[in-house]
């Protein structure tokens, strides 16, 4: 079982969600976050004081898949979230120790 965490541009959320649903992913968590990468931010001025906008708004998607669905899910995210411009985001894949469905108590791949 794998956990996919993808940081994407906020306006891409609907597209990515639709593409993931199409490849068979049945659940998804989205969180509003702020972040920056190698480009950092830019400077603005308010009433004579300068301030930097380092952090840009992003959305963090968390999806759990079984090993068979991993490659299609990654491809779906990459295809829909990419714009070709700076700030498209990153994907992190990690292995999960356990998955449990709270309502029924199912464990493992059945709980995904």
């Amino acid at each position, binding site marked *: 079982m794998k956990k996919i965490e993808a940081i994407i541009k906020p306006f891409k959320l609907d597209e990515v969600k639709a593409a993931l649903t199409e490849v068979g992913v049945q659940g998804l968590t989205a969180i509003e976050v702020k972040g920056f990468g190698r480009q950092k931010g830019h400077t603005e*001025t308010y*009433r*004579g*004081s300068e*301030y930097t906008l380092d*952090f840009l708004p992003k959305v963090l998607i968390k999806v759990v898949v079984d090993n068979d669905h991993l490659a299609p899910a990654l491809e779906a995210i990459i295809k829909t979230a990419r714009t070709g411009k700076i700030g498209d985001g990153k994907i992190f894949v990690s292995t999960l120790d356990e998955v449990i469905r709270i309502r029924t108590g199912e464990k493992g791949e059945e709980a995904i």
Partner: protein
Amino acid sequence: MTKKFITSLTALLLLLTVSRPTLAQTTNAPAAAAAPETPAAPAANNDPSGGSTGTIGDLGGGAAGSYTYPTFQVSAPADLNADDKKDTNKVAAFNDAKKAFDDYTKQAAAEPLAVKMADAVGHNRISINFVWTLVTGFLVMFMQAGFALVETGLCRAKNASHTMTMNMLIYPLGMLGFWVCGFAFMFGGVGALGGGTLGSCSSLNHEYTVHWFGHDWGLIGLKGFFLSWDTYDVGVFCLFLFQMVFMDTTATIPTGAAAERWKFSAFCLYGCCIGSIMYPVFGNWVWGGGWLSQMGANWGLGHGHVDFAGSSVVHMQGGVIGLIFAWLIGPRIGKFNKDGSTNTMPPHNIPYAILGTFILAFGWFGFNPGSSLAGTDLRIAVVATNTMLASATGCMGAVLWMWWVRTKKPDPSMACNGMLAGLVAITCPCAFVDSRGACALGLIAGILVVESVFFFDKIGIDDPVGAISVHGTNGAWGCLSVGLFGDGKYGQGWNGAHWFTLPDGTYKMMDPSLAPKGAVEEGVKGLFYGGGWSQLEAEFVGVLTCFITLSLLSFFVYYVVKLILGTHRVTADVELEGLDVPEMGIAGYCGVVMDKQSETPTSK
């Protein structure tokens, strides 16, 4: 201990008002080290039910430069004593007056209906003025909401509950201080000034005056405490309501300058002082018949310190108090770096700030035109329009100055500050300038407020909402501008000074009875309209006096409060967390996750 003291003091004061002990309410008791005061005004005539205010006697006269009601009723002349009978001029004048009175008595007997109708007209004149003054007063009260929104919107979300509640409480605190003694100090002697748009208010007949260097100096009023005894009168109550909402405008200005770090209890003690002591002193000197208003009549300085609706009395007073308190309390944590540069603390709600500014601009339609205290004075149309125009050029001036010159973006917060600066600046001259003058001085105000904000940042005074620059700097500019842009069309005889343009073109002050034939009495006239430097000098004296007096009063109150409470400022932990929960017990936005990291910069 402080709470018990305040509670018992309040109880004692209320007991005093209810039980009405017989305190001496004399008119003009001579002061210990001063010469006798000016002659007693006519005996007080109070009217709590409104049944006898507004009569045939209120026909006659009108606002300076405005419609003059024809005098209808003629009174019998005062009898001459033995000495007077030797003066042929006095005897001639007496005979003329007696004849006029006899003619009137004969006509009144022949046409009783005309007399009854004149009485109704007199009542209607006063009634229009009452309605006008009260309704414009209600508009100004609504400005409290505008101030609350502007200040809270330009500050951070974690302090919303605290900032809003300061603006809420200043309304009752200021009002009650004004009721207890502030109104009496400020307006205790205005009954003698005449004017008469609200009836005579003759019970306000005690202005403490000293006689120095050959002139009278009105210093403070001493009538009207608790609006009780013979000041329980419809005219006085009308005046009180109107003047109270102006006082509360001053009172709320420092809450913006000292926002986001002012301990609520310290603010409350300030609130007790503003309406009762701080505001009325200078106010009496300008609007209460005091010495600043008499500089024209006494020393030929224009029409004295002229301030139609309060650029100095209301706004500059608030700005100076804000300046001293912001300076003494110190800047917010994280605002300034060691090298003097500033860190940004972004406003959390621009929509509040814009909405608040519109509410203030709307309320200003009560503030300026209402200061005529007369719906029958049609100059109010000019006043209102000038007000509106100055707000527009103030806004555009500030926005364009930011956009084209300073930061290259049309800053919304400066659009707000600019509109308000234009409004503050026009507040003094609104009745005395034409529309071009209004536009011009508003434009200058818009640019001035931007530069002033940058200036105060540079000298290390943290003003989160620009209150000092909007109200202090432009309050001063507003007063000076009447010395430049006053066009003489309105305000003849203002503050008891009479200026005439003589047939040979010279412009000078003289007694109306000595004015030669062909001389035209002028209103308030400034440098650009042939009035010379005189009015500008008078305004300068007033502005300087305001700055000095309010600085001293602010220092005094600051240190007294510090003595009682130990500090004016919240602790650093509270300031960083946000004042809402520690000071007020409840957040402004429960359930809303705050982005604390971006709200609190670190000083470098």
